[in-house]
């Protein structure tokens, strides 16, 4: 009944039949069906690439690594049932899941059961703030991402003069991540002297943003700060052009980071800025090789989702290697001491600003230039300079 997905390739590489090799199993709770399956697919691809790499390099101290993958049907109680099931199987740690409404209950349960959880996709602050001893997140959170946006705006101010960027309008969906990112953004805007001239939320599934964008047009914001999932971001960009809402900076979180954003928006995608945890042109060693492997496994241009899946499993494998035992406490200890460099980012779990076991990851600012996602900030990791300000729609 249990479907154990085995993507291990270590044995065939040895060239002869091995005696039933000892295995190390890791639990994965991922959204493979239901509304979050889009993301689940991509995370799975990333994890499979990491699994191949781990096993090609000797597995976990000579033992083959295996993933025990369970679907959470994009709902919380199935994820909790999956955790219980995996705990029964005796896995030393679990990686999961995407939505915060699923990952939050998982984090609560696993903290109670004293079992390490490596967060796969959820970026909501609440998962690691206040957090617990057992929950680890290598990817970013709302504070880090909003911080990166405003660091970038500050950087543009420095380069081009304070008077240039004064006002910001915010537009975001009413799901957990967009709201949390918008709220953090509002705090930062006040702290750093930006005036908020527009603040509108919309219900998920809205496809007509014209009334909001028309209202914004009257306010003439310098920056439009949008947090939207895939199709909402596409619709917003198309309709901005249609209503003629010009801003000096257009930042669209999440939606604009996906490769097919450019396909669906066409040349209106240019100049859009977006924060990601990983980009294929970032100046980390090994990046090209990883990008190629992810591309091959995904069958399309890889995104930060695949990279985050890869990252989560690499972190798990690294900890298991150092733990020297499958005892949960030993694994937790090892995770705590993580000091890992991957082509995605560097990982160490710190406690800071009220966060616990959060990797203080350096997020990247991408800008779409001539239909390509290009890293433009922070300066030392950038591949190109940002283009500023965005030209008016009429001049394109």
């Amino acid at each position: 009944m249990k479907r154990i997905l085995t993507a291990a390739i270590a044995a065939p590489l040895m060239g002869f039949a091995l005696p039933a090799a000892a295995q190390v199993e890791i639990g994965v709770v991922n959204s493979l069906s239901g509304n979050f399956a889009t993301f689940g697919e991509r995370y799975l691809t990333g994890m499979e690439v990491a699994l191949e790499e781990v096993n090609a390099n000797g597995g976990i101290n000579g033992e083959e690594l295996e993933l025990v993958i369970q679907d959470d049907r994009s709902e919380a109680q199935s994820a909790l049932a999956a955790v219980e099931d995996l705990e029964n199987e005796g896995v030393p740690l679990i990686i999961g899941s995407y939505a915060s409404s699923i990952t939050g209950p998982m984090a609560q349960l696993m903290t109670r059961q004293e079992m390490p959880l490596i967060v796969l996709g959820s970026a909501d602050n609440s998962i690691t703030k206040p957090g617990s001893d057992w929950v680890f997140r290598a990817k970013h959170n709302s504070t880090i991402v909003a911080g990166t946006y405003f660091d970038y705006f500050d950087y543009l101010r420095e380069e081009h003069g304070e008077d240039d960027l004064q006002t910001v309008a915010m537009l975001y969906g009413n799901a957990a991540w967009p709201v949390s990112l918008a709220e953090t953004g509002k705090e930062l805007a006040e702290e750093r002297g930006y005036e908020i001239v527009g603040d509108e939320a919309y219900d998920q599934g809205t496809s007509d943003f014209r009334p909001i964008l028309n209202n914004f047009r009257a306010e003439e914001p310098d920056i439009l700060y949008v947090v939207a999932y895939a199709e909402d971001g596409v619709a917003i960009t198309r309709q901005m052009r249609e209503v003629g809402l010009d801003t000096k900076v257009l930042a669209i979180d999440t939606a604009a980071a996906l490769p097919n954003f450019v396909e669906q928006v066409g040349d209106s995608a240019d100049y859009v800025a977006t924060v990601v945890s990983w980009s294929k042109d970032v100046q980390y060693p090994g990046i090209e090789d990883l990008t190629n492997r992810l591309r091959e496994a995904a069958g399309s241009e890889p995104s930060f989702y695949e990279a985050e899946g890869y990252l989560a499993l690499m972190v798990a494998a690294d900890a298991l290697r150092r733990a020297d035992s499958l005892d949960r406490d030993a694994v937790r200890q090892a995770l705590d001491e993580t000091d890992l460099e991957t082509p995605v980012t560097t990982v160490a779990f710190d406690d800071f600003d009220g966060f616990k076991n959060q990797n203080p990851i350096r997020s990247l600012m991408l800008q779409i230039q001539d239909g390509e996602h290009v890293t433009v900030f922070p300066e030392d990791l950038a591949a190109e300079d940002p283009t500023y300000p965005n030209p008016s729609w009429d001049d394109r």
Partner: protein
Amino acid sequence: MAELVSLLQNLSNGLLIGGVYAMIGVGLTLIFGVMRTINFAHGDFVVMGMYTAFVFNMILGWDPYFSLLVALPAGFLMGVLLERVVLAPIVDKPHETSLLATLGISLIIGNALLLIFGGESKSVHVDYASMALSLGEVKISVILLIAGGVTALVIGGLYLLLHYTEFGRSIRATAENRLGAELVGINTRRIQGAVFGLGMMLAMTAGVALIPLLFATPTATGPILTLKAFVVIVLGGLGRVGAAVAGGLVLGMVEVMGAAYIASAYRDAYGLLFFLIILLFKPEGLFGRSVKRV
């Protein structure tokens, strides 16, 4: 002055969005009017139309509207088949039985699409996606205008079908009074099949017409559209094609005005609130004649 411009802008957008809603609702008004079935799969039928357009665009490079050639007959046949296999056997059961059956169909369509196409949202990018006509300072979206044109064509055609053909008269008779229709020799069972086919065909047409504008995700888009369609048909009044247009326009107007002048976070609530008010105080719909069985 600026406020007047923005009011005019919002009014015209409300009308155009209303055209989109009318398009989504018109198939359902037929199905609900004749069969009194809460068809939970209606939005998924629309999504199937979107995927049809997407597939032919991707593989053969067709303009999305060209795939109507496939969507129209396929929609009708699938509708007739679904009615025959799933709904006809439970026609005498309480209404929630057919509601659940359509819910099952909705789950099956959504998840089959997920398995075939993956979860990523699909749309067809056309060059005129962001174009707008300027009337003074008011901008009219070209893509909404086209959608409105298609809506007018489809609804006009349906009106002619219902009012000037024998088949159409039988449908209307069945909707008004099933027993009476049977007494005058109309095979209402066959009419129900044809109506469901017609409804699915209209839904798929809507999907094809709206793909440059909306996005298809396998499991999430369908229910959202289904809900909109129900609001549209209750607002307008049941079983009459013109009423779907009226309902769509009212919904578009209420939503756009609410989002522009109150708070966009409650956009859907304005439509639903209006829907409740109509349901409670004028159950025949804003523009419907009085209906005996409400």
